[in-house]
């Protein structure tokens, strides 16, 4: 298999986790691109926490509606069958378990499934809806690069940055591996096609359980 850009590997692999009919909330940044890589027969319903379900593609230039934006404030659209609501209902949907999957970016994920993704020291500017999403969604998938720009592991023993939620992450997908968080700990499920388990472990500060069979991340 030809080399694939790391961020593209992540979003393509995450896309495989989604099933038709699921209500999905995707965070700003990397997760946004997951929906571009769904299989042709997978139809999901996107929840936008500023107040609607059935979010569609961004409108073509010139067709923007100032009253219809996504949670990042960017022009958006709504598909037939969608619905608008107020912010209390939007987060009743989130907190009440009516979102099947949330896909979020991360700054750190630790071996206990704790997530830090909203603040760095000296820059605490707000958690937005992330804390509600991570606590409320039935399944929490973190899509992030494995290491910081200066090479430190973001998959850590214990998060040092301010937490978003405790023990809520179900799956972590990086450009190196797929980690599942279970009651027994963080389990290495898959590794990228061009790396070894040893290389993943070397890049990972967290303690990982290595099952007898570790798959290979396959994207088409």
């Amino acid at each position, binding site marked *: 298999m030809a080399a694939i850009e790391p961020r593209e590997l992540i979003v393509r692999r995450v896309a495989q986790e989604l099933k038709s009919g699921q209500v999905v909330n995707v965070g700003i940044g990397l997760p946004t691109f997951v929906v571009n890589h769904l299989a042709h027969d997978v139809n999901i319903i996107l929840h936008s926490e*500023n107040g609607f379900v059935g979010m569609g593609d961004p409108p073509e230039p010139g067709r923007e509606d100032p009253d219809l*934006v996504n*949670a990042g*404030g960017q022009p958006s659209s709504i598909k037939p069958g969608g619905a608008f609501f107020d912010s209390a209902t939007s987060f009743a949907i989130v907190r009440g378990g009516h979102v099947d999957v949330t896909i979020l970016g991360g700054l750190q994920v630790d071996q206990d499934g704790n997530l830090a993704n909203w603040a760095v020291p000296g820059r605490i500017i707000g*958690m937005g*809806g992330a*804390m*509600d999403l991570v606590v*409320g969604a039935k399944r929490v998938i973190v899509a992030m690069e494995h290491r910081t720009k200066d090479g430190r592991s973001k998959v850590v023993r214990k998060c040092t940055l301010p937490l*978003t939620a405790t023990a809520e992450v179900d799956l972590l997908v990086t450009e190196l591996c797929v980690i599942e968080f279970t009651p027994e700990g963080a389990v290495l499920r898959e590794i990228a096609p061009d790396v070894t388990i040893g290389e993943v472990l070397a890049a990972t500060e967290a303690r990982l359980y290595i099952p007898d069979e570790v798959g290979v991340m396959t994207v088409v």
Partner: protein
Amino acid sequence: MPKLRTLDQALEGLTDGMTLMIGGFLAVGSPETLVDEVIRRGVRDLTLIVNDTAMPDRGYGRLFANGQVSTLICCYMGMNPTAIAQKDEGKLAVELCPQGSLAERIRAGGAGLGGILTPTGVGTIAEEGKIKLELEGHTYLLELPLRADIALLRAHVADRAGNLVYRKSARNFNPLMAMAADYVVAEASEIRDIGGIDPDHVMTPGIFVDAVVGVS
């Protein structure tokens, strides 16, 4: 009780030190004209309860650059460097609250609830200073209600009885804030006579609204 007012009439009770709720999400669904009037009146030392700080030149975000805000309760400041700088310089007291908890706190303020229990924020800095309760094996934070002196709303259609209809994602916090302030003003781009809105389509009943201002 016709509620149509001029912009000047609608905000004549606004004074220094008041707590304002202002509708909008990153300035979408934000009452730009009412905010213009808050700026024109130059009131100071405001406490702002908003979803976010919008942008320095849009929506309620403009009130920071104009130096009118001393206290802020919101969930996100990321698009307003002016507000962030004021926070970092200690000129702006900030309480950050998770978005869903913020929505419920405003709703609780309007609904006469003493608070709500949420799992959101447990184990994070959002729990600082809050009562924690254990119920049936789950841990919850007690989030307290929020109320304001004045709520400023943006509607799409209003009738002269104060009934409001919002449009698309511009609804957001507006209907919640409509219930949670002592005095509620809405600007709307279309004003209809009483009876001009189907009672099944009303999103904010007129009984919550004190004044309506028509805007172009």
